[in-house]
């Protein structure tokens, strides 16, 4: 009886588990099956794809740099602060994580657009952000920064608080402590955070097409090109998708080595 009961529960749990796995795996495998592997190198070298590839690389790198120089100090403040507001700031940071990216794009337009809250004061200065590469970087940073800050904050919380006390008694400033003690120790966390933020920026679609528009060489990143090419030449869209899939798997592989041991 006991034996049969165990098998029954195995099956009741195993069927939905297998279905869940299939739901995730089948589309990815199909994508690989639909690919014409011999065509991929030439597909990726077409005049449509190269500008998008270049743009995606420059904007995601800029996003990573912005995360590094702006996000690291924020992560540090969050990690050391015991203040009640810290919890609120952290909660606020997670909003872009779960927000539909297209909503992020609308919000960015409302803020930085020509008639937007901030943008209307930039227009007289001759600065207009929508439809520029800067807009792409802003959109990517908007969605990617939270990943970086939360990852680095987590790493910094793991630091022994006595290190900071010791550094302080030795007369080190916050800046010096960060530079010589904290950052070297959390370097793996920073690297993981950067990889995470970079990959998220690479996949950005909704906020970019809403806020930055779609123009070759200026705002058309790889995901936008996939969307447009699917109507012109689906095979090119598949080839780019496979490249993006490979990059995603690569990044996850790197992260796995760091975190999911």
């Amino acid at each position, binding site marked *: 009886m006991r034996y049969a009961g165990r098998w029954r529960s195995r099956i009741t749990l195993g069927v939905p588990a297998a279905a869940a796995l299939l739901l*995730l795996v089948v589309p*990815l495998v199909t994508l690989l099956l639909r690919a014409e592997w011999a065509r991929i190198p030439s597909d990726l070298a077409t005049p449509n794809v190269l500008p998008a590839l270049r743009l995606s690389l420059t904007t995601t790198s800029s996003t990573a740099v912005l995360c590094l120089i702006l996000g690291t100090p924020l992560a540090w403040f969050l990690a050391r602060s015991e203040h009640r507001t810290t919890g609120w700031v952290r909660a606020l940071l997670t909003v872009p*994580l*779960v927000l539909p*990216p*297209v909503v992020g794009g609308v919000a960015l*337009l409302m803020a930085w*657009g*020509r*008639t937007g809250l901030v943008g209307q004061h930039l227009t007289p200065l001759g600065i*207009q952000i*929508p*439809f520029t590469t800067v807009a792409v970087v802003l959109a990517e940073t908007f969605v990617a920064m939270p*990943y970086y800050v*939360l*990852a680095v*904050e*987590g*790493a910094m*919380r*793991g*630091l*022994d*608080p006595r290190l900071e006390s010791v550094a302080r008694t030795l007369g080190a400033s916050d800046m010096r402590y960060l530079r010589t003690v904290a950052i070297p*120790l959390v370097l793996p966390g920073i690297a*993981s955070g950067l990889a*995470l933020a970079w*990959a*998220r920026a690479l*996949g*950005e*679609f*909704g906020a970019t*097409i809403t806020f*930055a*528009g*779609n*123009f*070759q060489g*200026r*705002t*058309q990143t790889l*995901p936008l090109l*996939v*969307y*447009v090419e*699917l*109507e*012109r030449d*689906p095979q090119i869209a598949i080839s780019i*998708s496979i490249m*993006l899939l490979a990059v*995603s798997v690569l990044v*996850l592989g790197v*992260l796995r080595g760091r*975190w*999911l041991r």
Partner: protein
Amino acid sequence: MSLAHPAPARRRLLPVVVAAFAAVLLAGCGSAPSSADGTGQRGWSDASAAPLQGTVTVLAAASLTESFDQLKNDFERAHPGVTVETSYGSSSTLVQQVDNGAPASVIALAGTAAAEPLDKSLVKDTKNFATNVLEIAVPPSNPAGITSIDDLAKAGVKVVVCADTVPCGKAAHATFTKARIVPNVVSKEVDVKAALAKVKLAEADAAIVYHSDVVAAKDAVTGVPIERRYNTTLHYPVITLADDAASRAFVAYLLSETGLATVQSFGFGAP
């Protein structure tokens, strides 16, 4: 607490971030507009006896949004047993969705050229029902002072058009060529309503859209006509994909005097 043993906060937080990230990465690369759901399958059983019943799934070009919303309401009021489900997008997206098996009873496209990639084995019938011409949409304040198509080529004017893959983008390209101008295009949007939205938000100085879009946008934009010799006229076909009575009735209603009048009241020309 030593460095070798990270704080619990880190252990808790990071896997969550990884999982969230993985989900976003896999889901975030594409956000194709969802097609209508599966209630209006092709080959709906033929119910010749009145009253009409069932679901008609209509895929229509983005420029038809307002007129087809009206047609849907009028048709449903006349046939309480029928539900009309509409889905709007660029004609090229819709054709691609149908070719990939999206359930659709009727598809209405911006221009006959858009129908070319459509799988001909699915087509039961094709009829043109309207025409449309291009028009320049500018914000009501007209910040760039646009009065003719030549003004689009002035320095610093931000022009938004549709993507080269969709009918309004192809037509805009043809019109620029005829007018021999090279405007400062800042974005190629996925469909005509997306291009119009950039003007509604006053982010762009001008967008090349259809006359019907300017009419439908009412006070939100101002239209600047394009001279006939430069303009491009599109003939809108309605293509029947399903054989059921309700779908045929919907197409017949669209092609009736009342239906055509409805479409024309939104700025379209006679077929």
